[in-house]
């Protein structure tokens, strides 16, 4: 029995639950007398509710109650009570708080009935009259109203400029500039937000909720409803996709809790797919990039400004242009990031927030400047390679981006590329090869875990983190089993419950590092306890052994000097009459390391497209994504995360866009029929490479996280490939056939759509 599990491509430990339909998601917990809630949403974007007539709906047999701002009271008065762990600066939205409408599809009521169908039907009978006010939702028309983004968002620092980019640019011989736009995008995890709220006799409430952070929901609900933390239990063993949408508590958990507390009955509230477009989104962003280089391909100036949309009530901020100061060596960098307040819901982190937005514009511009000086785009990136973090003036703890370039290019066959646009074709299919690179922070947050080793030699480790599909159950089981040298089948990892030790929100690619380090730490505690016990055993091969003389593997404790002298875990516990070992542990980032080094994961993406010369349709035929993210705990689950990120990147580049009707301030395509995401047939060959990257500084596990890094460079790689295929630069995402044809027709590189 080998017990070296980390680095092995283990199958998911929760795999059989997921393929048999027995993994339970938030809407799938039952209770006696369960009621069903159906949320109603505003049909206008800005104004006031004049009247909300629920009388006819209340006549429907089976309707138990209808909650609106007119009959809800007793909630927290101050809007700061509605803040959660991921709130940006501002005043959070308060559901059913007053008659004001702040954005289209704002939730304005909840119908509770004995069946789902009755609740839905009754909701259709509610008549709402509004007093409408003038609204503003068009980002591009309102850039003049932009203002500086405030501090307050976790990890956000104001971008730092250096040198004198403007004058260098003005005098430069080789230079390019352009404007890049993308509209809002919605996460659309396949499971819709849902909460099953169970009211208990003693005033407690248990919430089975879809969330990326049970502790965050616990805090939020306890503050709003004035309940003590111990009276709010949040449980979330499985989450049907998050991508950032579950970082903040969503309004269905408020609705379900409200109804359960008021009616003293269990209530389930599930959003509709349409309602999945009624809260946070990736903000539409306008970016302008200008760059200059010398004749040898050295970047001489970079200017990058970005304008992101936010709501009227919160200042959602992203780290967009900051990346442009660190990606390449350049002495003159001017960066600017501002927000434009619009009558929309507050945007929310969506996979690689900020970085993926930045990379689309910046890495497209790098390609363009490389073409301006007639240097291969990959070679151009190597010429300007940044060994150190130029903003912070610190070395990276590790940066194997060159290995990503080399291995990615070799796998892709980049050396066979002809640099001229429109130089490769198959019949009427224009073939283009493009590449780009990206970076993401390798972060670690404080996390706690508990381990219980029982007399039968079974270990249960728990931490209140979540499983959004990333493989958390699996990798934590691997880490625990390896640390204690146990058979992986003897180890169980539990998560998603506020009764467990607290873990950070599951986001930012930090879960493996944060919770993994805590799991390792707590298992080290168990190991130390076992060594102490082993030493205390009488007349055994390990009697009196010092801890440093001992090690564990294959379910046994043995002398390093004499592996034959050993006892099994069960024997040690039995001989010392130990019923169980219970340890708690925690882990957090090393503040000293942060003062000396910067921590980033990196990736290089190579993409091939085929563009139909007559129709302008774009197909991504091949992608190679080479990733440097430290040690990979499980190449199978990590590979799936990167694969999924590449699919997201393809989807973003070619399909995703939530289209705003600026007359009504409403997203028009709020369903999966019209909001297009990549489907099976859109996806062709994808190769994932994890390059070797050793890092002792980043965290005790040497890992950097893989949730974000895979998507960042995909859209620019595809945009660059489209340029290589066609000779036109489509700067606005998604790259749809109409834009390709229109630009080719007009033979210019810039249009406002």
């Amino acid at each position, binding site marked *: 029995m080998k017990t070296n599990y980390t680095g092995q491509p283990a*199958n998911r430990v*929760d*795999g*059989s*639950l*997921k*393929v*048999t*339909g*027995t*993994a*339970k*998601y938030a809407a*799938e917990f039952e209770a006696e007398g369960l009621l069903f809630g159906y949320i109603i949403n505003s049909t206008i974007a800005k104004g006031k509710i004049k009247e909300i*007539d*629920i*009388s*006819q709906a*209340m*006549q*429907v*047999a089976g309707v138990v109650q209808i909650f609106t701002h007119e009959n809800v009271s007793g909630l927290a008065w101050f809007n700061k009570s509605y803040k959660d762990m991921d709130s940006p600066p501002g005043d959070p939205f308060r559901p059913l708080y007053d008659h004001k409408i702040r954005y289209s599809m704002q939730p304005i009521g909840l119908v509770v009935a004995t*069946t789902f*169908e*009755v609740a839905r*039907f009754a909701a259709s*009978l509610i008549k709402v009259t509004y007093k409408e006010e003038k609204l503003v939702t068009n980002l591009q028309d309102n850039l003049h109203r932009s203002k500086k983004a405030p501090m307050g968002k976790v990890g956000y620092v104001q971008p730092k400029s250096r040198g004198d980019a403007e004058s260098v640019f003005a005098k430069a011989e080789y230079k390019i500039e352009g404007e890049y736009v993308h509209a809002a995008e919605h996460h*659309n*995890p*396949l*499971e*819709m937000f849902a909460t099953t709220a169970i009211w208990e006799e003693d005033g407690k409430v248990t919430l089975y909720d879809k969330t990326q952070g049970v502790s965050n929901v616990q805090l939020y609900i306890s503050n709003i409803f004035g309940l003590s933390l111990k009276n709010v239990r949040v449980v979330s063993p*499985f989450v*049907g*996709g*998050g*991508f950032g949408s579950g970082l903040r508590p969503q309004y269905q958990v408020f609705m379900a809790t409200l109804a359960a507390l008021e009616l003293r009955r269990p209530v389930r509230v*599930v959003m*509709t*797919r349409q309602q999945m477009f009624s809260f946070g989104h990736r903000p539409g962003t306008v970016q302008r990039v200008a760059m200059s280089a010398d004749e040898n391909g050295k970047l001489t100036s970079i200017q990058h400004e970005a304008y992101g949309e936010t709501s009227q009530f919160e200042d959602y901020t992203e780290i967009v242009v900051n990346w442009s100061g660190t990606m390449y060596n350049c002495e003159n960098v001017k960066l600017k990031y501002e927000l434009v307040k619009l009558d929309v819901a507050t945007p929310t982190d969506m996979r690689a927030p900020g970085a993926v937005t930045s990379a689309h514009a910046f890495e497209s511009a790098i390609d363009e400047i490389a073409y301006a000086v007639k240097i291969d785009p990959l070679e151009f990136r190597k010429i300007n390679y940044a060994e150190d973090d130029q903003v912070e003036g610190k070395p990276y703890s590790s940066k194997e981006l060159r290995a990503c370039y080399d291995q990615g290019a070799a796998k892709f066959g980049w050396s066979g590329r002809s640099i001229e646009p429109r130089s490769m074709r198959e019949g009427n299919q224009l073939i283009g090869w493009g590449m780009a690179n990206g970076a993401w922070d390798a972060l670690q947050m404080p996390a706690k875990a508990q381990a219980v080793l029982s007399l039968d030699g079974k270990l249960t480790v728990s931490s209140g983190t979540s499983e959004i*599909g*990333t493989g958390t159950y699996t990798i934590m089981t691997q880490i625990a089993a390896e640390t204690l040298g146990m058979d992986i089948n003897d180890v169980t990892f539990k998560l998603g419950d506020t009764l467990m030790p607290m873990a950070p929100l599951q986001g930012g690619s930090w879960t493996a590092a944060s919770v993994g380090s805590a799991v390792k730490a707590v298992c080290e505690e168990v190991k130390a306890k076992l060594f102490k016990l082993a030493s205390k055993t009488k007349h055994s091969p390990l009697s009196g052994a010092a801890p440093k003389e001992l090690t564990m593997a294959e379910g046994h404790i043995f002398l390093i000097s004499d592996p034959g002298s050993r006892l099994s875990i069960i024997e040690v516990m039995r001989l010392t009459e130990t019923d169980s070992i219970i340890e708690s542990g925690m882990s957090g980032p090393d503040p000293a390391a942060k003062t000396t080094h910067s921590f980033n994961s990196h990736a290089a993406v190579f993409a091939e497209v085929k563009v139909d010369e007559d129709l302008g349709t774009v197909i991504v035929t091949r992608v190679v994504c080479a990733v440097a993210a430290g040690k990979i705990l499980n190449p*199978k689950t990590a*590979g*799936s*995360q990167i*694969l*999924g990120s590449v*699919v997201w990147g393809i989807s973003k580049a070619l399909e995703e866009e939530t289209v705003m009707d600026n007359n009504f301030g409403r997203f028009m395509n709020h*369903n*999966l*029929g019209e909001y297009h*995401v*990549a*489907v*099976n*047939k*859109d*996806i062709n060959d*994808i190769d994932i490479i994890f390059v070797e990257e050793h890092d002792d500084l980043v965290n005790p596990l040497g890992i950097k996280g893989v949730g974000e890094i895979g998507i960042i460079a995909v859209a620019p790689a595809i945009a660059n490939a489209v340029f290589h295929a066609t000779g036109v630069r489509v700067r606005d995402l998604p790259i749809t056939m109409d834009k390709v044809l229109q630009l080719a027709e007009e033979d210019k590189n810039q249009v406002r759509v």
Partner: protein
Amino acid sequence: MKNATETVELPEHYPVSLKVNGQAYNLKLQPWVSLLDALRDHLQLKGTKKGCDHGQCGACTVLVNGKRINSCLTMAVMKDGEEITTIEGLAKGDELHPLQKAFIEHDAFQCGYCTPGQICSAVGLLNEGKANSLEEVKELMSGNICRCGAYTHINSAIMQVKGETGNE
């Protein structure tokens, strides 16, 4: 608030017999109950997932008399007397269906929410003698969205099982 005097008529309940995973169920359902909600809320078979309720995502795919359908677009009363197979009915005791095994082996899912629908669609394809080439699998599986993006692994799993079982 206005006074409403009109009473609202609700649809009547009708007897519906469904044979689900080999077991007979006799229900009384209003005609507005979808097959999906009948399975999830009335029979407590939560393995079949609701992802959009509009036939746009495929998460609710089940087999009716061996054929793939979106259970959210089907009213339960329309399937009176018919045989339905859901994800819960594919394994034989502890022995997983070959596709279930292949999905685990190929890591053909992440969050797992679309997985029951993907597997039911794939079982349907194989039943119908389709999935004869990778291109055909990609085309015919495109009604099942996987937001986690496991498509290539899903296809590998299906092609492997197709290869093992041959053209039945």
